[in-house]
C-alpha cells in the first residue's frame, strides 16, 4: 500500500488508482468510489450552474480528475507548509498560503461562496474511512524509547525491520560431509576428464572397447620441465590460503644494505635484476649485475 504514507483524508488518488479496473469492491474501494462520486456530482452541479445542459461522460471524468488533482495538491501543499513550520496539523492559514501560492485569488472566495445560484448538494453518505488492514502482524510494535520525543513518528511496522531467520537443521555429521565432499570432487573430476577425453584425442587400454577407460592422449610439450616443476595455480592458491607468510622473500633488492658481505647474515633476501638492464642501479656488487659496457672504438693503426 503506497498510500499509507499520505494523510488518509486526501487519499483519493491512490484509492482510485487501486480501485480502477476492478469489479470486485472492497470496503476501502467503496469508500473511495463514494468520494469520487461526490466529486462527480460537484462537477456536474458546477457545470449546470454554468449553463451546460448535458456533458459527455468522458468530459465529466476529465474535469473530475482535474478537480481531484487540484484539491489533492492543495492538501499536499498545505501539509507541507504546516510541517515546514514544525506543526503537524494544517491550519487555515496554511491552506490560504497554499492557495495563494497556487495562483488563486483568495479574496474572491467569500463572494463566490455566497453567490446566489449556487446549488446545494447533499453531503456524501457518511462512510467510515476504511480500516487499513494490518499488513503483517509480526511481533510487538515497539514504543518509543524514553529519549525519543513522542511527537516523532512511530516505529514502522515490525515486519519491515524484524528478521525471522529460517533455516534447516545443518548436517553436522563429519562423516557425511567428508563423504559428500569426496564424491562431489570425484564426480567433478570424472566429468571433467571424461569431457576432455571426449573432446580430445585419446588412448585406450583395451583394443576391443576403446571407450572403456579413455585416457587423454599424452602430448609432448616443448618445455616439459615447466609444467612438471612449477606449482599449479590451484596449489598456489592453496598455499596462499594456508600460509601467506612465506611469500615475503619477494623483497626488492633496493632495500639491501650496502657493503654487506657474507658475514652479515641478517640481510633481507637480495634481489634480482636482469643483467640486460644496464641502467638498473644495484647496491650489491655482483659482476652479473653490472651494466654491460659499450664497445670501445677501435683505434686504427
Amino acid at each position, binding site marked *: 500500500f503506497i498510500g499509507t504514507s499520505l494523510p488518509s483524508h486526501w487519499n483519493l488518488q491512490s484509492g482510485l488508482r487501486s480501485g480502477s479496473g476492478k469489479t470486485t469492491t472492497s470496503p476501502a474501494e467503496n469508500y473511495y468510489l463514494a468520494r469520487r462520486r461526490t466529486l462527480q456530482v460537484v462537477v456536474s452541479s458546477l457545470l449546470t450552474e454554468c449553463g451546460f445542459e448535458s456533458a459527455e461522460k468522458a468530459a465529466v471524468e476529465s474535469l473530475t480528475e482535474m478537480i481531484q488533482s487540484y484539491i489533492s495538491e492543495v492538501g499536499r501543499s498545505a501539509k507541507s507548509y504546516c510541517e515546514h513550520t514544525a506543526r503537524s496539523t494544517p491550519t487555515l492559514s496554511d491552506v490560504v498560503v497554499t492557495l495563494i501560492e497556487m495562483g488563486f485569488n483568495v479574496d474572491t472566495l467569500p463572494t463566490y461562496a455566497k453567490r446566489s445560484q449556487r446549488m446545494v448538494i447533499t453531503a456524501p453518505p457518511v462512510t467510515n474511512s476504511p480500516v487499513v488492514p494490518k499488513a503483517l502482524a509480526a511481533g510487538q510494535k515497539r514504543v518509543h524509547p524514553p529519549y525519543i520525543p513522542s511527537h516523532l513518528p512511530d516505529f514502522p511496522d515490525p515486519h519491515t525491520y524484524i528478521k525471522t531467520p529460517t533455516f534447516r537443521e545443518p548436517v553436522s555429521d*563429519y*562423516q557425511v560431509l567428508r*563423504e559428500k*565432499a*569426496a564424491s562431489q570432487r*570425484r564426480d567433478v*573430476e570424472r566429468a571433467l*576428464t571424461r569431457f*576432455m*577425453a571426449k573432446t580430445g584425442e585419446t*588412448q585406450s*587400454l*583395451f*583394443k*576391443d*572397447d576403446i571407450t*572403456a*577407460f*579413455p*585416457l*587423454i*592422449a*599424452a602430448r*609432448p*610439450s*616443448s*618445455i*616439459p*620441465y615447466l*609444467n*612438471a*616443476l*612449477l*606449482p599449479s595455480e*590451484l*596449489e598456489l592458491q592453496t598455499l596462499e590460503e*594456508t*600460509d601467506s607468510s*612465506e611469500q615475503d*622473500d619477494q623483497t626488492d*633488492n633496493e632495500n639491501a644494505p650496502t657493503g*654487506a658481505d*657474507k658475514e652479515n*647474515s641478517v640481510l633481507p*633476501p*637480495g634481489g*634480482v*635484476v636482469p*643483467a640486460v638492464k644496464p641502467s638498473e642501479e644495484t647496491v*650489491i656488487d*655482483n*659482476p*652479473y*649485475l*653490472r651494466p*654491460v*659496457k*659499450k*664497445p*670501445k672504438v677501435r683505434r686504427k693503426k
Partner: protein
Amino acid sequence: MNRKKDKGFESPRPYKLTHQVVCINNINFQRKSVIGYVELTIFPTVVNLNRIKLSSKQCRIYRVRVNDLEAPFIYNDPTLEVCHHESKQRNLNYFSSAYTAAVGAVDPDAGNGELCIKVPSELWKQGDEMKVLKVYIEFSLDQPKGGLHFVVPDIEGNMAERGAHVFSFGYQNSTRFWFPCVDSYSELCTWKLEFTVDASMVAVSCGDLVETVYTHDMRKKTFHYVLPIPTAAPNISLAVGPFEILVDPYMHEVTHFCLPQLLPLLKHTMSYLHEIFEFYEEILTCRYPYSCFKTVFVDEAYVQVSSYASMSIFSTNLLHSAMIIDQTPVTRRCLAQALSQQFFGCFISRMSWSDEWVLKGISGYIYGLYLKKTFGVNEYRHWIKEELDKIVEYELKTGGVLLHPAFCGGKEKDNPTPHLHFSIKHPHTLSWEYYKMFQCKAHLVMRLIENRISMEFMLQVFNKLLSLASTASSQKYQSHMWSQMLLSTSGFLKSISNVSGKDIGPLIKQWVDQSGVVKFFGSFAFNRKRNVLELEIRQDYTSSGTQKYVGPIKVTVQELDGSFNHTLQIEENSLKHDIPCHSKSRRNKKKKIPLMNGEEVDMDLSAMDADSPLLWIRIDPDMSILRKVEFEQADFMWQYQLRYERDVVAQEEAISALEKFPTPASRLALTDILEQEQCFYKVRMQACFCLAKIANSMMSTWTGPPAMKSLFTRMFCCKSCPNIVKTNNFINFQSYFLQKTMPVAMALLRDMQNLCPKEVLNFILDLIKYNDNRKNKFSDNYYRAELIDALTNSLTPAINISNEVRTVDNLNSDVRLILEEITRFLNMEKLLPSYRNTITVSCLRAIRMLQKNGHIPSDPSLFKSYAQYGHFVDVRVAALEAVVDYTRVDRSSEELQWLLDMVQNDPSHYVRHKILSMLGKNPPFTKASESSLCNEALVDQLWKLMNSGTSHDWRLRCDAVNFYYTLFGLTRPSCLPLPELGLVLNLKEKKAVLNPTIKPEAGGIGGVGALDLCANGGIHTPISGFPSSLEEEHLPMEPPPNGVAPAPHGLKRKAETPLGSPPEPVQFTAQEEEDIDMDTVHDSQAFIYHHLNMLERPSTPGKEPPLVEQTLLSMPATPLPAFIKEPSASKHGEHHHRHHHHDHKKKKKKHKHKHKHKHKHESKDKDKDKDRERERDRDRDAHAFTSSPASGRSLRSPSLSD
C-alpha cells in the same frame, strides 16, 4: 705409479702448459654450432720440442699456428671406431682390449692426444732457449654429439624466448669434446675465457667475470672471464642461455642461474646454500678457494650434479617450491655434494687416474659429515649402512672394486681386475655402475681412515692439503709450485702420517690396493658353566669379490648388566673366541637394564633364555670393516635388539633378520617400533615392509585385522569415523613418510588365495577417495603417487581361462575399480600436473603391472607415446622402463629395435644412458638363455653401437659394452654362424684381455698369422692383421728427422732410453705414424679441404657416413687382396723385421716384460687405426684426391719434408 715417486709430479709431456685462452665468438643455436679459437701458452721442457700433442675430439680444426707460423698437424682418434669395421670379430674380450688400447693411445694422462701438431722448424731452436710457445688453434663444432649439449625447444619466438640454452658436460675429462686442450686433470694452467653470445643470453663460465662488453652492433655481448687459479681443462665448463639471475642474499659473490620462469623455485631452493658453505669452511678451516661461485640449472642435464672450477651445473629438475617435501633433502644433498667437490676435485685436482679415489673419497667423506650435521646421526648411520650394503652387494656380485690400481706393479699385473669385462686403466673404459660403486667405496674407506686416526687429524690433513694448494695457487708458474695442487695417493698418505703419526699402511693395503669385501658368518653358544660366550666367526674369502680379513674386530654384547665392547683379533686360523660374560643370568630381579648409550630401561625379560644373560650380540657395530655379516642369534634376541638397541643400524639389521621369524612376538616387536614416535622414521618404514612379509608367512594363524590397518587408522584417521582419513597435514615429516609407506606395505598382504585381501584394497581405495589436501601447506603429489603404488602392489596375476583375450567385459571387479582410479589420476594429471609428474610415473608403472599380470592386454603403445621426447624426463624413464619390461616379457624384437633406435637418436643423453642401463638390468635375454631375439643382426647392431656409434659419450659407450656383455658374455655370441668360430676362438680363449689376433702378428706377419687369418677370416679379416705392415713400412723411408725423434717425454726418461727408441711402447707406433704426416706442409687449400673431410668423419661416425666412407664400405672384397699383395710383397718384409726386431730389442734392453702384452695391444690397435687411415687414403686416391698434399700418409703422395 705415483706412490713410488715421492718427489712430486712428473709431467708426461715434454712441455708445460701455463695459460690457455678460450674464445668462443659465435654460438649458433639454430644450427647448433660453435666457432672459436684457443691459444695455449706452453713452456717446452725439452730441447727441440718439435711436436705437441693435444686432446681434441669432434672439433673441426681450421688452422694451427705456433708463434704466428702455420703449423702442420694431424688429427687421429682411434676411439672413434675401436675395432675395424670390417672385422668380423665379435667377442667382447677383443673389443675391450682394443678399446683400452685406443683410449690409452690418446690418453692425455700419458702425454698422448688426438691432435698432434708439428712445431715449425723455424721454432726448433727456440726449444734450446726454452722460450714460450703460443699455440693458436681455430676450431668449430657443428652439431656436437658430446661435450656441449644444446637444448632448443621447438616453439615460437627467438632463442631467448624459447629458453634455448647450451652447456658443457661430460664424464671425467671430456673437455676435449668442445675445445682443443690438454684434457688431463694433472695439467694445470690459468685461463682466460671469452664468450660472445646474443645480448639476451648470459654466458656462465669458470672464474671471475671481469667485464661484459657489447659488440659493435650492440646485438651481442662478450663475457670475459679470468681464472687466475691454476685449473685443469676438465674442470672448465660453460653454460649459455637466457638465464634468470639470482644473487645469493647471504653471499653476494655467489650467483645462481636458472631458466626463465623458474626464479621463484630457484629462490626457495637456494635459500639454504649458505649454510652448506659455512659448514665446509668451518670444518676445513679454510675459505672457499675461488673468489666466486655460480650454480646453473639446466634442462636435459647429463648428470644431476657436475662440479667445475668455481661453478656447478645442476639438473633443473632439482628445483622445487616450498610445498614439496620429498625433493628438498634430495636437492640439498646434491648441493652439498657439488660444494664438497669444489674443494676436492676442482680446486685440488688429481695427479693420475689411480689417485681418483682420494679425491672422490675426501669429497664424499666431508659430504657425509655434512649429512651428519644437517640430517642427524641416525640419517648418517643409515646412509653409511646403505652405502656399505650397496658396495658389498656389488662386489659380491661382480667381483671387486679396486680403488688404487697399480698398473706398473708386479708381474702380470696387466689386468688387476680379470673378473671385469672392462678395463679399469682409464676412467673412460669403466662401466658407470662400477664408477658409482668406486665412489661409494672411496668415501667408505675414508671413513675407515677416520676411524683409525680420528676425525680431528683427518680434518687437519684436509686443511693441510688445502692450504698447501692455496699457497701454490697464488704463485706464478715459474715457482713450480702448481703441482702442490695435485693430490696423489702417496701425497695423501704422507700427509696422514705426518699429521697423525700413525701408520695406516695395512688399512690402505687391505681396502685400497686390493679389491673385495669381507664376508663374515657368525654364530655363538653360551657356556653356562664358565659363564662364557663362545663366539665363532668364520669368513668366506674364496668366492668372488671377497678378501680375507685379519685384524681387530669389535663385538658388542648386551647383557643384563649392561653393554660391553670386546675387541677380538681375527687371525688366520682362529675361528672361536671366548668372551667372558659380566652378568649371571637372573630372572626375577626387577632392575633396569643399562644400554650402550647410558640409558636404563625396563624390559620384559620373559622371552629370553632363562640360563643366559645375553640379550643380543653385534659384530662390528661401527661398520669399521667393509663387510657383510651373517649372524645367527635367536629370534627373541633380534626382537630385543630391535626394541632396545638405540642404534638405527642395529634396528635395521634386526628388522631384516626378523623376516625369518614369523611369530607373534616378532609381530609385536615390529608393531611397537612402528608406533614409537622416537624411533627413526626410516626404521619404522622398513618395519612396515617386514611386518607385511611376516603377516604373509603367518597367514593361517594371523588374528585381528590386516597388519597395520588398525595402526594406520589410529594414527591417521578421524576419531569419529575411523574409515575416513584425516585431511592431510604433513607438517610432521616423520608421520608423513609413515603415512605414505604404510599403504604401500599393506598392499603386499596376501590372503589364503594369494590375493590381496578385499579389506585392504577397499581401505586403500578409501584413502584415495577421501584424500583431501585443501588445508595442507604441502603438496600431496608424492602421497598420491604412493597410493597408486599401493594399488599396484595389490595386484596379483589374473586367473586366465584358456588364453582368452583380455577384454573389458571379463575384467575382474576389483581390477575395474583400480583401473578406474588410475584412469582418473592419469587424466587429471593432464589438467593439473603434479610436481615432477610423480603421479603419471606411478600410473604408468601400475598400467604395466596390470598388463603383466594379465588383467589388461599387454601393449607397449601407450608407453611408447609417453616415452617420446617432450615429456618430462621422469615420465619418459618410467615409460621406457615399461617398454624394456615388455621387450623382455613378450620377446619383441620390434620394441627392442625401437629402444635401440632411441639410444642412438634421442636428444637427451641421460635418457639414452638410462635406456641402456635399464636394458642391462632387465635384459630381453641373457648369455645363459636362448632367445629368438638373439641373432646376427642384433649382434652387428650392438657391436656397431659400441664400436663407433657411441664415440661421443664415454658413459654411453660403456653402457653399450655392459649391455653387450649381459646379452652375449665375453666370448663370441652363440647366435653367430659357426664357420668363423673355429680358429678365432681357440686363439683367444685363454687370456681374458689378450687380443687373439696379436699372436700371429707378433710371431711374424707373413707366416702363421697370415695363415691363421686366411683360414678363418676369408677376405675381411686379413685386413686387421695386414695393414700394420703397410703402415709401418714408412719407417725406414722416413725416419724421424735427424734421429732425434722427439719422444714426448721428460728429459730424464729420455736419457735412459736409447735415442730414437721411445720409452713407452704405447708411444711407439703412434709416433712413427705421425712422423709421416708431420712432414707435409699443410698450407694449401687442398690441405684444408682434406682435413675438413677427415674431420667430418669423426663428428659423425657411423651414422651418416660421408661419401668417402660409403664407397669404402661398398668396396668389393676382391680388389683388396690384389692391392695388398703389391706393397707387401715388395717392401714390407723388411719392415716387419724391424718391427719385430724392435720389439725384441726393447725387451732386452729394458727387461720390461710386463709391457709385453700391453704393447701388443697398443700397436695392434694402432695398426688398426692406421689401417683405417690407410683406407681413407686409399679411398681418397680413388676419388682423385691424390694430389692433395695432405694425403701424406699415402706412399705416393709428395711429401714435402723439411
